[in-house]
């Protein structure tokens, strides 16, 4: 799984960071999302999917890659 964030869309809710702090961070400078781990470990996949679904601006997207990439 590959993760992308669109900082232009990000509304700065911090929800993703609250849910999966290992993967997402929030910039103190502009309040927007920062990505710690663009290719999160498989055991975090469910949490990351939920964070993407709950993102209040649709700024987080998941892109499936070949399983060989994992």
């Amino acid at each position: 799984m590959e993760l992308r964030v669109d900082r232009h869309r990000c509304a700065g809710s911090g929800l993703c960071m609250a849910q999966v702090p290992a993967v997402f961070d929030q910039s103190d400078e502009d309040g927007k999302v920062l990505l710690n781990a663009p290719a999160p470990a498989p055991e975090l996949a469910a949490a990351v999917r939920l964070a993407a679904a709950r993102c209040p601006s649709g700024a987080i997207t998941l892109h499936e890659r070949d399983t060989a990439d994992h």
Partner: protein
Amino acid sequence: MTTSTAGAGLVHTRRERFGPAEELRRLSAGRPVTRIDVGPGTDGVPVWLVTGHAEVRQVLGDHRRFSTRRRFGPPSSAGRGEGPRPDELIGQLMDYDPPEHTRLRQILTPEFTLRRMRRIEPGITGIVTEHLDAMERTGPPAELITAFASPVPGAALCELIGVPRDDRVDFLRRCHAFLAPGRGRQRRAAAGELLSRYVAAMVARQRTDPDEGFLGMLVRDHGDEVTDKELRGVCVLLVLAGLDNISGMLGLGTLLLLGHPDQLAVVRDDPRAVDRAVEELLRHLSVPHAPTPRTALADVTVGEQLIRAGEHVLCSLPMANRDPALLADPDRFDITREPAAHVAFGHGIHHCLGAALARMELRIAYPALLRRLPGLRLAVPDDEVPFRVHALAHGVDRLPVTW
């Protein structure tokens, strides 16, 4: 198309206890977008009510084609939304479209990060404790709205903005006069003017002697980038967003929990369950009826309905949050659910700036109340609890309790 019932406000503001009114459910049955009649306000320009979850997210997520700048009203006076902004709307983010919105939101967002909110968490806990102490001193019984649900977000707002201690009673009195529903336009405008004047004086003080509050920080960090009128508008926006919504959630949420003792016990006793419980309360109650109306800037199809440029769109948050496409059995209140992608704080670039603060207040206040007063119960029969009408956010007017 529907006709509105006299005196009950627009159809999307109608509720029955915790949920959307039957009339609203019928209206949108099987149709995520439906045309509504809002009376003479829009001079014949169609108004659409969007009730589907995906459709609400589509509209709120598409700031290029749905403007928040233009208001209900004849197109002649609303124009294309490019004329000078009325004074009272300066600084009010929900009236701004990009790029104006982007600029002002960028200045404000860092003041509302999760980390910054965590820094003010002890202050919020202190406020909650203080009000529970007072309830214990003077009760039982108590009226939970005036004793807790309303003053807690009031004090939190004062902390956030940096309203001096000695001014808080006066400041909050002005806020509540401004927010009071059903008072006619003139009295409301007069109350708004009084509040605005107070805030302007506070902004002026912060310009010369900035402190550690939100206003002081903005003045220090951004100086001339942000005008006094904008700062004043931002404060008024925080008042609009931070009082009735949270008091509505605290009052209505407590009433809902009292009716579900098993779930109440979990919120009281299991700190790990509180996050989910708060998300479910936010979803199930959806206290704000709708975000700022949108106006289409181009022809757009939403849920198979063509919305033409110039037409207005209202998004029902409680209906979207009870869309069966969002989650199974949406009318069931269940704090053990996986958190749903609800839209209680809106969606897109206008998503509530203070969502992290609101969540924090709720996560602290509900369990603290239930733990301190484990015997908490209604002091009147359930059907005598008066629900808000004509308010921007749903809630109860009074909640007599004992313990």
